[in-house]
């Protein structure tokens, strides 16, 4: 199965019932599969006139009660940034898949890259929280798509799923989880009658319950800074609490949101911190190093935003790790975060290329000092 296909199937398993998108290499397969499959389950697919309209329609459909997603690549992801900010401030669940390709600009549509990592965090203007997940295999594409939907519903937030051209297009044999075996989360509905409902009043874990338009609860949604009723406000005593809550709702649930996988880190002297397609090379490099009895471990990031600070901190604080290698198909984006968290307590070295080629295990071994 192909990664993009697994993503589409994962979305269906998660209950997606609305897709609006625009064709762009290397994400188009996701749209094509859902164009076919969504009406079969009573869902809606629409190809919109551009990427901006696509994410806008997704947000509209989500407020109408449907789990909704779109998929794109770099140039389209850039266009969607305003709408991502809108979804973040209006707290509308939705999933945005970015199958990263080599940029900047038109770049190389059929080559992989991991150059949108920082953009996923800060692409849209203003101080907003975001969740971004990054699969490194076809199976993870399936699982993390379901997780993306779960997080978007649980935390009333847009969630970005960062694939890359390799993970999206590669085919590998995969055993998918049995249907129904993975938890699927629905958004929390209010437990009070309409006159008592405030769409932006913190509920459990700082997430306000969300009821779709048309079910008897009439409320206002806006991209302006707003009070708990959704009405625009300029009052400092309404804006500041809102800002704190919206960021806190993610921070309170880091245990749930931040997913990483560690292999061989307990006795490691060097750890490779990797994500996406590069994590595959990293794992191979780790095995090759271990064959040579070098104590190398792997920390694979499945969640990249919020950045897994505790996992990195644990490495430098609780183990004998002296060196951290951060291979990325970009010129060093996530490495900056690793350096920030490590605070000089270990050597952090990047392995970087942004030329459309994957990073090889050999390159990583060389960075570790074990290459020939």
């Amino acid at each position: 199965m192909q990664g993009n296909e697994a993503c589409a199937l994962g979305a269906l398993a998660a209950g997606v019932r609305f897709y609006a998108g625009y064709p762009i290499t290397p994400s188009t397969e996701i749209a094509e599969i859902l164009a076919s499959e969504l009406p079969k389950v009573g869902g809606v697919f629409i190809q919109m006139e551009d990427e901006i309209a696509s994410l806008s329609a997704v947000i509209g459909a989500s407020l109408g009660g449907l789990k909704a997603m779109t998929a794109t690549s770099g140039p389209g992801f850039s266009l969607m940034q305003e709408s991502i900010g809108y979804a973040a401030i209006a707290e509308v669940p939705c999933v945005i898949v970015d199958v990263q390709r080599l940029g900047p600009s038109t770049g190389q549509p059929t080559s992989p890259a991991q150059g949108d990592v920082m953009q996923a965090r800060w692409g849209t203007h203003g101080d907003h929280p975001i969740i971004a997940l990054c699969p490194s295999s076809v199976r993870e594409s399936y699982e993390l798509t379901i997780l993306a939907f779960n997080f978007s519903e649980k935390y009333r937030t847009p969630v970005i799923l960062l694939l890359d051209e390799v993970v999206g297009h590669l085919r590998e044999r995969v055993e998918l989880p049995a249907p129904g075996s993975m938890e699927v989360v629905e958004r929390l509905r209010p437990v009070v009658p309409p006159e008592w409902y405030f769409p932006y009043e913190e509920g459990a874990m700082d997430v306000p319950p969300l009821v779709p338009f048309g079910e008897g609860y009439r409320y206002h949604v806006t991209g302006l800074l707003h009070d708990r009723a959704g009405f625009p406000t300029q009052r400092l005593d309404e804006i500041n609490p809102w800002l704190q809550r919206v960021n806190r709702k993610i921070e309170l649930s880091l245990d749930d949101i931040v997913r990483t996988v560690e292999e061989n880190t307990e006795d490691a002297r060097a750890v490779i911190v990797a994500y996406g397609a590069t994590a595959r090379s990293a794992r191979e490099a780790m095995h090759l190093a271990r064959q040579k009895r070098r104590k190398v471990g792997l920390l694979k990031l499945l969640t990249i935003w919020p950045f897994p600070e505790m996992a990195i901190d644990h490495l430098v604080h609780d183990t004998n790790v002296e060196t951290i290698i951060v291979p990325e198909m970009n010129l060093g984006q996530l490495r900056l975060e690793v350096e920030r968290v490590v605070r000089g307590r270990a050597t952090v070295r990047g392995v970087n290329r942004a030329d459309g080629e994957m990073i090889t295990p050999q390159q990583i071994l060389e960075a570790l000092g074990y290459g020939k």
Partner: protein
Amino acid sequence: MVAETNNNHVIYKYLRSKKKFPSVWCPGCGIGTIMGALIRAIDRLGLEKDDVALVSGIGCSGRLPVYVDFNTLHTTHGRALAFATGLKLARPKMEVIVIMGDGDALAIGGNHFIHAARRNIDMTAIVINNSIYGMTGGQVSPATPTGDFATTAPYGNIEQPFDIARLAEAAGAVFVARSTAYHAIELDKLLEQAIVKKGFAVVEAISQCPVSYGKMNRSGSAVDMLRWQKDNTMRVEAWGKLPPEERAHKISRGVLVNREGVPEYVEEYYKIIERVKTA
């Protein structure tokens, strides 16, 4: 009996009592009048509040939905029709009414405007045309007449404005109507027809902006601008009888386009679902 014929009562039935008033609009602005027309139209149609969604863009016109007790969605600049498309497809039975200004709908929103019309998706698009970007202080818009002044056209506008009705028609809208804030009662009826019409219905509601547009173009007071709307527009039936040279000097009002037989998007898509749905 008094309550039913007293227009004030109707308005209060639909205003959000928890929202802070007075509204954000300037004294003399026509948007409030247009909001009244919309409320009366919805009331006369007997629509349930839960079955109505108002989706708006950014600008003075975009501030309309927050004041009224429906499902309201204030979106990003120019993208209201795209948000509305998603909402309508998710809730096909919802009466979706989209409120945009001339800049919002036709400049940044131009692409979404023509595609929503082309799809003939069942919604009502109200373009409140005051020929300016009012909220941001009076910049030129695609509806500003040639030669008029704006803060970004200090030497006079050298562009030609859109003919909104012809643009909508050419793009595929099945219903196009136009009226003005002065002709509020006529506007009620046109909005009723537009809402009832299945397919993409456009209503251009000409409004006055005495503060931004008016000051720069010496339009006088709001009353003067309303009088201008009265004197420079005429019913389309009469307008059609004018000799061609004179038509350019008057703006037609009424139902300008009303077509039947064009497939409507939501209906067509749900037919696909019926056809291919597995259980």
